[in-house]
């Protein structure tokens, strides 16, 4: 009987320790963050005059955002700051550890399909759904939105969706919360919510041309000489060695696509980032693209696996005034759903490149 009781006690203790472990970990992390926030606040940098930016500028510095919060940026006295994450606000560790004062929380699933079904394919949601979710936060076409998030591409995806829907002025804190705290600015842990609005102010999507659907991408590849479908994927994905994802079991690229580099794996855009984690400027992108098979004079449509990484180069070109750009939303994921669609496996400049169709591709190429 004693042994049985001891065994039961052991099991209960193990379970309790495991459950408590999850909670206590986040709690101690929270305390650490609070302490570091206090320290950085004390070391806060001196106020310096920050140059104004254009409406179309997307990537801004923490200093600019801080000056806008202080009412020093004309036209930006009433900005709405939002941290972009995945899932419910209660489950977003980064937001709850400390966010930019006044920042609300927005979910990636408010702008894109979360099911991966044939109909959804992780594409942007219908415009009315995106608008409805934005209105719940009080975002209209005239709202000056400033986004940031732990994931560079996820944040870019949200910004892209807002611009596509019709928000006229969307910005991103370049470098995210790390850049914000390193600049010496304070954070808070209160959960903020926007005040819901009724009228978006424009019929959405106001910019359907920013998004290319799969049929258009295929047609343009076949018939438009000036069109370039630019793969923002890792070399491994580009060469068809791996799909890059554990939920895609075939590897390759749409036939005719060109490589735009930028990624080391399917979940980063490191090639587009500076050493400090900020997104490069146009000159930096041009350097990355120096030996690529496209120029900025081509009509460019960026794509990746499901449309996150592709939004980063889109935004950089957008803020530099380019209008000959779009994002092919469905990426490799949606292309895979069509057995008769043409694909290339390998470097198209090489004689070894295999030209076939999705249906003929071998399986077993999912990422480990």
């Amino acid at each position, binding site marked *: 009987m004693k*042994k*049985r009781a001891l*065994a*039961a006690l052991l*099991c209960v203790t*193990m*379970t309790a320790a*495991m*459950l408590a472990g*999850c909670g206590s970990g986040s709690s101690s992390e929270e305390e650490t963050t609070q302490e570091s926030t206090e320290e950085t606040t004390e070391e806060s940098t001196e106020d310096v005059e920050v140059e104004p930016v254009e409406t179309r500028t997307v990537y801004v510095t923490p200093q600019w955002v801080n000056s806008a919060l202080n009412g020093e940026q004309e036209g930006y006295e009433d900005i709405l700051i939002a941290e972009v994450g*995945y*899932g*419910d606000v209660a*489950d*977003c*560790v980064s937001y709850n550890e400390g966010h930019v004062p006044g920042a609300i929380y927005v979910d*990636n699933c408010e702008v894109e399909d*979360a*099911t*991966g*079904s044939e109909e959804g394919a*992780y594409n942007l949601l219908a415009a009315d759904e995106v608008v409805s979710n934005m209105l719940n936060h009080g975002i209209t076409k005239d709202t000056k939105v400033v986004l940031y998030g732990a994931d560079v591409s*996820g944040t870019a995806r949200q910004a892209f969706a807002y611009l596509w829907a019709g928000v006229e002025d969307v910005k991103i804190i370049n470098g995210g919360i790390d850049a914000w705290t390193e600049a010496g600015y304070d954070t808070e842990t209160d959960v903020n919510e926007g005040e819901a609005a009724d009228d978006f102010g424009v019929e959405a999507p106001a910019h359907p041309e920013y998004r290319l659907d799969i049929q258009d991408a295929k047609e343009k590849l076949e018939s438009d000489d000036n069109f370039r479908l630019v793969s923002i994927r890792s070399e491994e994905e580009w060469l068809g060695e791996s799909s890059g*994802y*554990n*939920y*895609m079991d075939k590897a390759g690229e749409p036939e005719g696509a060109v490589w735009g580099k930028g990624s080391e794996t399917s*979940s980063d855009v490191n090639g587009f980032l500076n050493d400090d984690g900020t997104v490069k400027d146009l000159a930096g992108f041009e350097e990355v693209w120096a030996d690529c098979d496209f120029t900025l004079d081509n009509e460019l449509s960026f794509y990746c696996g499901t449309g996150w990484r592709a939004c980063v180069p889109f935004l950089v070109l957008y803020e530099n005034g380019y209008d000959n750009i779009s994002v092919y939303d469905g990426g490799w994921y949606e292309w895979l759903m069509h057995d008769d669609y043409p694909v290339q496996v390998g470097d198209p400049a090489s004689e070894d490149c295999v030209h076939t169709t999705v249906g003929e591709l071998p399986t077993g190429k999912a990422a480990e």
Partner: protein
Amino acid sequence: MKKIGYILALVLEIAALAGAYIIHYFTRRKLGMVRYLNFKNMTWERDYPMGPLKTGCVAVVAVLTVLVLLFFLKKRKETSRLVYAMNICMIVLTALYAGYTLGSSTETMTDYYFISILFLLAAAVQVIKTAIAVLTAKGQTEGAKGEK
């Protein structure tokens, strides 16, 4: 030997329930996890008759639970408190499994199949363990009677 078996079964049940908790924890927080589960859901629904399978599993576990329970009630005066507790656990775990499996779906929870399978594992282990306990208790009682 029987005690070791009970302890192993208990560990397995706790591991299954903890696994369900962990999967759900990460499904709520990790986009990659959700997408992998979406992929598995679609693959399973394409390759297997998931509807009849889940209904069949619930039916089998429910019938076995009722049979073990009836057998226990018939012999309850001959069994110990531990067997009584095992039967209560069996009812709770079967109700949890059946309730979750019939009341939820992949539309409401992306990790539905994984959690359902882990609940099934916990319930099935408990049913088997309880059935053995009830049968063994009967044997012991008869053995005790025979000794008299």
